[in-house]
């Protein structure tokens, strides 16, 4: 595994370079916005990457909480299977099919739901026990970085095109802002928590955040119908060549995110192993009073007497 990292790093660098070249020179100029629009090749892939990472964090948090007891673990698995089955079948029912907004195909909904369910089991299989929490903290941190990129590139894009830095009614940007706030508060909680169960508390917060996001989306969506606002990032269909470059850019970003997550994961794992080893080292030593006073380890902050 260790040898794969430098190879992947080089490949990622090449891919990022290629994506940059495609974005800046190969992609056609936009008819309305001119060359300013090219920031989309950083703005949108960052957003998709951030959302994917936060989603993985949500799955890891739910599993971490569910794994506390075997009964809840089983219950959670069955609920996910149920969601997968329902999500795969329901969109194809004629009555439901008619209700779907234009552009949303039943097959894409079914695929998305199945991918979500599959991701749940994949994460559960490859990240047992405590490594779920390692995954959660890693994806949260890297996700916040990418989310920051989205929030910075958004206004930079909006200003020359629309003349304003920020539109409160822009659903996507505002939802991203709330998501960013939630995960920054997640990281602050992890940093400030003195509890032995910090991991559980953080997982609980992640669940609350995930419940919040759809509500944010709907609240802003309705607000916009009453107060029409400019949409940053544009809507509607995209030139296939632009879409092509967008996907290349996203691939590069995903590889980069993967690399960063991998090293952060490894770092956090090491840090925890060191902490545990330090705490238990005296288990191997004799409980000798003279030795103990010479070591004189006084707990500085935590640890009740």
């Amino acid at each position, binding site marked *: 595994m260790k040898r794969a990292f430098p190879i992947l790093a080089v490949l990622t660098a090449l891919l990022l370079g290629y994506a940059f070249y495609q974005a800046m020179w190969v992609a056609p100029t936009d008819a309305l916005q001119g060359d300013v629009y090219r920031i989309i090749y950083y703005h949108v892939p960052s957003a998709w990457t951030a959302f994917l990472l936060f989603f993985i964090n949500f799955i890891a948090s739910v599993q971490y909480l569910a794994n506390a007891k075997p009964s809840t673990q089983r219950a959670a698995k069955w609920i996910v299977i149920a969601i997968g089955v329902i999500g795969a079948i329901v969109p194809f029912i004629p009555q439901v099919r008619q209700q779907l907004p234009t552009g949303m195909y039943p097959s894409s909904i079914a695929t998305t739901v199945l991918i979500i369910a599959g991701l749940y089991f994949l994460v559960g299989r490859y990240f047992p026990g405590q490594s779920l929490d390692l995954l959660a903290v890693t994806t949260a941190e890297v996700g916040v970085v990418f989310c920051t990129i989205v929030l910075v590139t958004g206004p930079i894009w909006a200003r020359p095109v629309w003349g304003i830095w920020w539109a409160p009614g822009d659903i996507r940007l505002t939802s991203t802002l709330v998501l960013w706030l939630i995960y920054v508060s997640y990281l*602050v909680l992890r940093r400030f928590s003195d509890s032995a169960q910090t991991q559980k508390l953080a997982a609980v*917060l992640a669940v609350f955040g995930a419940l919040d996001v759809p509500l944010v989306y709907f609240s802003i969506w309705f607000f916009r119908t009453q107060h029409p606002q400019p949409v940053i990032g544009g809507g509607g269909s995209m030139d296939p060549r632009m879409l092509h470059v967008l996907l290349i850019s996203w691939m590069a970003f995903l590889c980069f995110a993967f690399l960063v997550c991998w090293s952060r994961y490894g770092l956090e794992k090491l840090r925890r192993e060191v902490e545990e080893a330090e705490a238990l080292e005296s288990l191997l030593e004799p409980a000798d009073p003279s030795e103990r006073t010479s070591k004189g380890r006084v707990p500085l902050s935590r640890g009740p007497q």
Partner: protein
Amino acid sequence: MRSFWSITLATLTKDIRLEWRSKDALNAMLFFSLLVVVIFVFSFDPLAEESRHIVGGLVWVAFLFAAVVALNQTWARELRNQVLDAYRVSPAPANALFVAKVLGNFLLVSVLEALMAPLFVIFYNLRALGPAWQLIPVALLGTWALVVNGTFFAAMSLRTRSRELMLPLLLFPVSIPAVLGMVAATTNILTGENSAHFYIVLLLTYDVVFTTACLALFETVLQAE
């Protein structure tokens, strides 16, 4: 089931009795609420045309600040002599404690709102151009939204450094859709320009979703050392 509600009631009456005996905290909170209103009156000119459109936002921001002050002392008494440990060690269900605290906070924040709302009406010459009765469900649902999550996050903050800072830090991001709903609904009712119906449904949904989440996860938070 009967013992759940009897424990909730016992805890609630105990809290009210204790609050009544040491009225200092309550008086300070009432005065703080008054101060917040006054600051807003000086910052946002009541005579300006635009005031009617923003006063919905002003009122709820003021309520939010007052609520945070109230929420921060939710668990103060339980912490003082490790009484919370006595509760944890007992067979009493964690959610009975949670519900009692939420109801207590709901009453407290409602009292603060009852003080601040008339002041806003007076200073800003408020008149509802839309259906004024709808302000009642908005106020009830909105206050519940702040209080249910606030009590939950106050419990979470117990195990952190900078406890008083952590509560708003955790509460505000998650409360954004509720705040949007409260403000938009209030503004629509006051200006009469749009219907507040959707926002009332939004607040109801928010309350149901997060009350369920809090009840499901409170025990986990309580048992964290």
